């Protein structure tokens, strides 16, 4: 146990000394890897923000049926009965033109506009909750409703919200794909810096092996080197994203406030940041491991 600690202490010290010996090279590698991680992390944060915004929008399927302006109460009752009898209709809610107007007046920016009107321009409407919401079934429902008397207009305005939802699933996959590609890039970049390290220490590795160093011993400082580089790069990526959010966040908030929303950009949480930094360290470790493994496999007698 004591020997193990000493061995790791030695290896860690050597790795850090190697990093410190070439500050420029170290800085450049850390920045390259950091940028590679910033891309998927930044996209992830961006899409997380878009999804958060999208989840505030009602995406429950809802069909609005607007009636003609001039209808009798009898015709309205008749229509409600017919709508309820349709097979794909779950619930029907009547929204009178007075309720609609009152609701509209509550939206601040509309108040002035509506006050200037002499009569209520809004028709009666029915809000329908369909049983099935796949596009084909809804299209049938629309056709069924369209032929009913006194129906003026049918709006299925949840469609775009559904599209947005589907888009964010798509975006998640893009982020995942990009993340995987750039994770591989991090492994290769680290692998390459380690390969250069190995070349400058060929003699040391050779002599060490001749006098009884195990592969594990040879590998250890390189693993610390790769992991440290990865951790630093992860830190760079997290900081870069934080700085961007801080820089752009105020603008975004001001913009959304002007649209009557209190939406603001969310930075990655502490937990997410730690996961990214650790993951980056792990990738650096992996790159170093592969690089040393390939080298030792070539030079070993076994």
């Amino acid at each position, binding site marked *: 146990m004591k*020997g193990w600690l*000493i061995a790791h202490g030695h290896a860690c010290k050597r790795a850090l000394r190697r990093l410190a010996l070439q500050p420029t090279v170290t800085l450049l590698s850390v920045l390259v890897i950091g940028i590679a991680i910033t891309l998927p992390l930044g996209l992830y944060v961006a899409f997380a923000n878009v999804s958060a915004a999208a989840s505030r929008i009602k995406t429950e399927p809802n069909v609005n049926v607007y009636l003609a302006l001039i209808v009798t109460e009898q015709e309205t009752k008749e229509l409600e009965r017919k709508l309820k009898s349709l097979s794909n209709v779950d619930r029907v809610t009547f929204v009178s033109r007075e309720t609609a107007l009152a609701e509209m007046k509550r939206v601040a920016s509309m108040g002035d506009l509506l006050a200037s009107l002499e009569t209520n321009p809004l028709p009666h409407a029915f809000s329908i909750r369909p049983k099935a919401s796949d596009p084909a079934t809804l299209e049938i429902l629309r056709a069924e409703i369209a032929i009913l008397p006194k129906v003026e207009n049918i709006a299925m305005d949840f469609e775009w919200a559904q599209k947005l939802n589907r888009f964010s699933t798509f975006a998640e996959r893009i982020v995942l794909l990009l993340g995987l590609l750039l994770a591989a890039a991090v492994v290769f970049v680290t692998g390459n810096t380690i390969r250069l390290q190995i070349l400058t220490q060929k*003699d*040391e590795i050779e002599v060490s*092996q001749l*006098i*009884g160093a195990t592969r594990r011993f040879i590998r250890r400082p390189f693993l610390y080197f790769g992991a440290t580089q990865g951790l630093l790069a992860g830190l760079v990526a997290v900081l870069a994203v934080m700085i961007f959010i801080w820089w752009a966040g105020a603008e975004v908030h001001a913009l959304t406030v002007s649209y009557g929303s209190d939406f603001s950009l969310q930075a990655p949480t502490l937990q997410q940041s730690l996961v990214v930094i650790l993951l980056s360290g792990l990738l650096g470790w992996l790159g170093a491991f592969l690089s040393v493994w390939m080298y030792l496999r070539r030079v070993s*007698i076994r």
Partner: protein
Amino acid sequence: MISFSNTVKRYPNGFEALRGVSLSIEKGEIVALTGHSGAGKSTLLRLAAGIELASQGSVLVNNQNVSQLKEAGLAVMRRSLGLVFQDHKLLFDRNVFENVALPLSIAAFSHIETGKRVRAALDKVGLLNREKADPITLSGGEQQRLCIARAIVNRPATLIADEPTGNLDPEYAETIIDLFKSFNQVGVTVLLATHDEIGLARLSCRRITLDHGKLAA
């Protein structure tokens, strides 16, 4: 301690450096390995040190068949040996002290113990006052002694040396030979390849002579 039985070493290009060698070196013995250049002396030493593996036959070191050792086993076996190389194999990016400390770092010795042992080894070869020097500034004889210090710092039971007096002036060579004799006197098994007649005379020990990869009659 070290025994070869019917050992053949064939290189990938087909050259047979050893063609069926059987010999045995006992614990505490000092043995000189001689023969013309290309007779297989270095190959025999490399097999004994587990740096290369036999193509046929076996090599036993401390009753372990070297060919059957796994990677980690080989490494541990090499630590029980002290190797002195013909070309020294010193590391020129670190000072004398750090060169000698390398085997101890591999064996995970503590800082204090490392300091003690390195200085004891340097004292033995007469380089104690040069511990901060760069190896490149040392003379050929001093570099050879530095290599010997690194070989003995781990207090191995066996020393294997390939032409340790190779390119040295006769008086330097004598001090090196005397060093090996002194190690043998405290119980270290020594296997030493040389074609230097003066050194051999001074060693006055058992000789094994190789001729074209076989033991000379």
